[in-house]
């Protein structure tokens, strides 16, 4: 195994994205301190609407990942428990609320999240709506909820339909509903923030975000077909996800292109995370934010490399929506977003397709407490002949897992997989 490969500096696109994000957040904090309104939104809220109004926003789950990475989740969740609120339910969505309800300290991640002017979330599950209403009742922050509709019948091959034929993939009623809700959201946001919505700007944002998705698709396809994995997954995740939260900006589109070009040249050079790649692994589930080094910890010992996480794959397949009506296309981007990850048949067929195209030898399947339909995912993969290791833990709550025990468990399982050497 080459030391050169293992000690290679971080992917340039990842470093650039992390730097950009820190600068952007510092600017946002400064603007918030000057009284500029900003929004806190869940990851599957149509953020492009806010961008088309020039209202800055922070993605709730991204901020949770920062809290978790700084190992602050336990302390903040304690603030919920002290108020008699659950500290063990939907932590990934609850952490920013927990921080807001905690005493302010000098050690807050990145200086801490300022109090938002408005929070927006969809009503998926039973807890989210009640949790987000606490922003309003406890902190005086306006909460704008969106419905989370469900379909009775869906075609399984959503990733083939979604870019152009999303009406067929999703069904018109769900799109109608979110489109109407977005039309109603605009005046409410204008009232709350003083900003103005621009349809022309939304059209440009949708075009840029579709272009960004196309770059991500090329990167995903490149990584799937590369003989050996050229980039570590914990570099790919920030390189994809930080631009994702800036979706629809020239910077984000350029960042996606830059990632593609960097990966492309690495593949051309024959670079590999593990020169003697013996096992290719897939990680299904959310990122293990409090221990991102985990993903690289089997490279030297087992020649095993994580070649897949959902973040790039979703960026490749789940966002692009083409159409003449930008607002309707935006509604189509998000009204069934969670289903792509969590709801069979979409989730299981997609994971199986991705496992095959990436030639994985095994799947580590993280089942968070709020995961759904995990049996079907594991069943479909095993039926396709792909070994699966299930791990039950909350990805954002460092208290839920013993990193050493997890490492040992995964190591033993990897040893049971076929070795390519």
């Amino acid at each position, binding site marked *: 195994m080459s030391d050169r490969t293992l000690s290679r500096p971080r992917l340039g696109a990842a470093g650039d994205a992390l730097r950009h994000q820190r600068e952007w957040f510092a600017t946002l904090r400064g603007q918030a301190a000057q009284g500029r309104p900003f929004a806190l939104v869940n990851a599957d809220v149509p953020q492009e609407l806010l961008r088309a109004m020039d209202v800055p926003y922070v993605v709730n789950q991204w901020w949770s990942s920062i809290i978790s990475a700084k190992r602050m989740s336990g302390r903040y969740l304690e603030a919920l428990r002290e*108020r*008699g*609120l*659950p500290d063990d*339910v939907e932590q990934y969505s609850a952490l920013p609320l927990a921080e807001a309800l905690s005493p302010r300290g000098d050690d807050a991640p990145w200086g801490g999240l300022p109090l938002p002017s408005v929070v927006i979330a969809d*009503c*998926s*599950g*039973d*807890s989210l*709506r*009640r*949790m987000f*209403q*606490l922003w309003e*009742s406890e902190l005086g922050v306006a909460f704008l*909820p*969106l*419905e*989370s*509709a*469900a*379909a*009775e019948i869906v075609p*399984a091959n959503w990733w083939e339909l979604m870019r152009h034929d999303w009406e067929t993939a999703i069904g018109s*009623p769900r799109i*109608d*509903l979110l489109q*109407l*809700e977005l039309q*109603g959201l605009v005046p409410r946001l204008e009232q709350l923030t003083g900003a103005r919505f621009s349809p022309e700007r939304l059209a440009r944002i949708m075009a840029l975000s579709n272009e960004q998705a196309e770059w991500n698709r090329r990167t995903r396809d490149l990584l799937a077909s590369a003989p050996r994995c050229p980039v570590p997954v914990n570099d790919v995740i920030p390189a994809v996800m930080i631009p994702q939260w800036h979706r629809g900006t020239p910077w984000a589109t350029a960042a996606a292109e830059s990632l593609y070009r960097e990966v492309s040249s690495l593949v051309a050079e024959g670079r590999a995370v593990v020169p003697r790649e013996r096992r290719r692994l897939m990680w299904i589930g959310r990122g293990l934010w409090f221990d991102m080094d985990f993903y690289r910890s089997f490279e030297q010992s087992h020649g095993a490399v994580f070649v897949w996480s959902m973040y790039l794959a979703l960026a490749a397949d789940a966002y692009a929506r083409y159409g003449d009506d930008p607002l309707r296309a935006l509604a189509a981007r998000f009204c069934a977003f969670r289903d792509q990850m969590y*709801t*069979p*048949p979409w989730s*299981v067929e997609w994971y199986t397709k991705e496992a095959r195209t990436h030639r994985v030898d095994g799947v580590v399947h993280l*089942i968070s*407490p*709020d*995961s*759904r*339909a*995990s*049996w*079907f995912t594991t*069943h*479909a993969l095993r039926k396709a002949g792909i070994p699966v290791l299930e791990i039950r833990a909350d990805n954002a709550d460092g208290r839920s897992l013993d990193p050493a025990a997890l490492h040992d468990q995964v190591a033993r399982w990897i040893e049971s997989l076929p070795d390519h050497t």
Partner: protein
Amino acid sequence: MESPEPRQAATDLRAAHDDRGLHALRRAAQGRPVVGYIGCDTPVELIAAAGALPVRLAGRAGRDTTLARTYLDGCVDPQAVNILAAILTPQEHDAVPDQTPAPDQTPAPDLIVITHDCDASLQLFYTLRELRRIGAQTFPPVHFVDLLYLPGEPTRRHNLGRIRRFADQLAAWRGRAIDAAELAEAVADHDAARAARTELRRRRRAGALSGSEALRWYAAGTAMPAREYADTLTAALAGDTARPAGRAVFVSGSSHDTADVYDALEGDGWLVVGEDHDWGDGGDQPPIGEPTLEALTDHYTRAVLPTVARPPHRMADAIRDAVGGSGAHYVLTYCRQYDDAHRWGYPAQAAAAGVPAALLRDQPYAGIDLPDLSSQLLSQEARMAR
């Protein structure tokens, strides 16, 4: 139908609760279809108008849920898992042991209808849809009715579309459209049942019934033909009833589709004087009145709010009112394992209650931690008295 005398009516209601297949079996024997439904917001009028008996599917303590847990794993309310077990193993009869009919005589529903009243119902639907797709299990056809609850016009329009589609699906299922007269009769029958339920609530508040008996009488209404239920309940309420003494407690949180928890509470010296879940007082609905799909939509969008769709501040206000109206001296927020949404509203509810309040979390299906309840409530009462 001639109204039964009060004592017989009470016996009939209890029988319909204890054996939820009783009336379904009678209907099946007449060659008429039975539709099993999940969700307090199911438009039962449309099912009845299509000539079928709507029976709300319920769990049962002691049912073997091993297979169901395999599929519906993760954080899903065990009540939904229990119902899935019944769907996957319909030959297992739900009657109380040693009573007729025999186990293999209970009909499986001809059709299953599931609404989006809570996440557990949605996950149950997804599970059935996927089990059918991959051919893992066989069960009756399933329809999903995606009714939602935010107060805006987009939601109402969405729900109108879903109710129209459901009416079309029922028409296709039975081979004939639902006509105006059928819908009018069904709405009138269910409005009569609603009125009888409202009277039950009034009588209960007046101190005439135990909580477990009230819950049985309510639940019977989801397993009987609506008009027959209205007549039977009205007759039962005409009789003399009395309730035992007990420490009056109001129950919030998870729903109770059997009387097991209430029996345990009242066997321990508590008296359940009210609840906000939809199998009990919380299932109270105003009449629909006009027999149209638009009126059904307004009703099921605005008047029937599943517990998890009720805003916490409204729940807290309701608790304050309910404690006053029911004479409760204590409030219990009961959360089954994985039915945690209620916990987000608990601090506000406890503050609003004005009486000792307890939270029991992670409770098993049909079970309750009575020592924990007593410990929480009585110690709080002692503190408040000081």
